[in-house]
């Protein structure tokens, strides 16, 4: 496990894995999109708008997974002082925020023909909006503290405090039970969704998960490279402006 903590090893491994991950995500997404948008029928009640679900539901799952990723990485930062945990959390935040926004926007587009309104103050919509704000807060905190390790630890504390919200999002369906339909895929007694809709949905969920990891690894690599460049710049600036070392001290 500890060899993964070595950024050099991580760069080498992720460099090998990434092209395959991207390709796999692309293939599964292509099949899922084909099945969802061309090879499956519209719903007898919702008509063609049911197809928004193939984007909306996986995005919502990934939005929650993104925060879980940040939460676990934050534990890694605070407890194990793992050098990559902080990079992982920082890289996951904008991706998670983008998926949350995607879930909110596709939900609004789906809501207009189905509920008759773009936005309803329903419990699950609202908690997703809160999740989006939590992401924004994390990103803002990262950007306002200059020192990297300090920013990482501050964000980790905030992420753990904010993760109190994750169960609230998940169980809000049962707590408030309002306009939004209840869970229909993961629940006791098996899914209550027809197989013809379930297959493209599951394929898209797998595709989005692969996409998440591909984006996450790419963002982590970018962050590591960015830190290396910053380090090199600092070193070069030191060399350029440091007073020359006296010859006597070098000789001794």
């Amino acid at each position: 496990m500890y060899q993964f903590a070595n950024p050099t090893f991580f760069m080498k491994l992720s460099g090998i894995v990434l092209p395959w991950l991207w390709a796999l995500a692309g293939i599964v997404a292509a099949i899922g999109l084909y099945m969802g948008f061309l090879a499956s029928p519209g719903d007898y009640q919702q008509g063609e708008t049911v197809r928004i679900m193939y984007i909306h539901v996986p995005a919502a799952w990934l939005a929650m997974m993104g925060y879980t990723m940040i939460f676990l990485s934050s534990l890694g930062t605070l407890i194990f002082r793992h050098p990559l945990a902080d990079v992982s959390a920082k890289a996951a935040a904008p991706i998670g925020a983008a998926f949350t926004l995607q879930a909110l926007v596709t939900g609004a587009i789906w809501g207009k023909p189905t509920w008759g309104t773009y936005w309803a103050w329903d419990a699950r919509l609202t908690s997703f909006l809160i999740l989006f704000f939590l992401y924004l807060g994390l990103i803002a905190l990262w950007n306002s503290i200059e020192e990297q390790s300090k920013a990482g630890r501050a964000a980790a504390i905030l992420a753990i405090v904010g993760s109190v919200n994750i169960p609230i999002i998940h169980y809000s369906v049962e707590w408030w039970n309002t306009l939004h339909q209840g869970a229909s895929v993961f629940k006791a007694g098996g899914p209550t969704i027809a197989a013809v809709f379930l297959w493209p949905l599951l394929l898209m969920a797998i595709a989005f998960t692969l996409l998440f990891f591909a984006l996450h690894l790419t963002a982590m690599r970018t962050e590591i490279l960015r830190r290396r460049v910053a380090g090199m710049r600092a070193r070069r600036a030191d060399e350029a402006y440091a007073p020359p070392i006296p010859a006597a001290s070098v000789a001794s």
Partner: protein
Amino acid sequence: MTPFLTLLRRDIALALREGGAIGTALGFYLIVVAILPLGLGPDLNLLSGIAPGVLWVALLLSALLSADRIFHADHEDGTLEALALGPLPLELIAAAKATAHWLTTALPLALMAPLLGLMLNLDIAAYLPLVGTMLVGTPAISFIGSIGAALTLGIRRGGLLLSLLVLPLFIPVLIFGVSTISAILVGPGGYMSPLLILMAFSVASIVLSPFATAAALRLQLS
């Protein structure tokens, strides 16, 4: 317990003798509530309907306004470092500071709420639930606010960042506070569950947030 009480007494004395802090929060609360009818129109029926929510939201904003100063002065003049070296663990320092904020800001704001309720034509039956839920719910605001205050210490424009960080975390307090009041206004019974959740949230914040605040303070002091 004595160092805790000493610190608490010191903070309350400072807030009272300095004067500015309490007055500013109360003044802000007053002006936010006073400016709303100017935007919404003078319809008293509308105002009395939305009064509990308006009073709660304005209270959150007013309490937040002073929250970023919980550690500010002590951090600037080095008192915080001296306190950290003392016998009191940072967790209890954080708890004392948050308690002092609650006593000197949230408590006066909650007590002023009925007066502002008069201006919004709030139903007489709602005064007791309003103050009651505020007294029960505001400790969560002070304690969660102290986490944000500790995280944003030493950041320029920290106050703005603080609101982005902690306002989402205040939402459960707002939801359960207002729904307790409306449940009481609708009829007897049925208000116990939101009230109990509000209490649970408040108690959990009091117990848990000093640990997060102390972790953030340790980061600032390192």
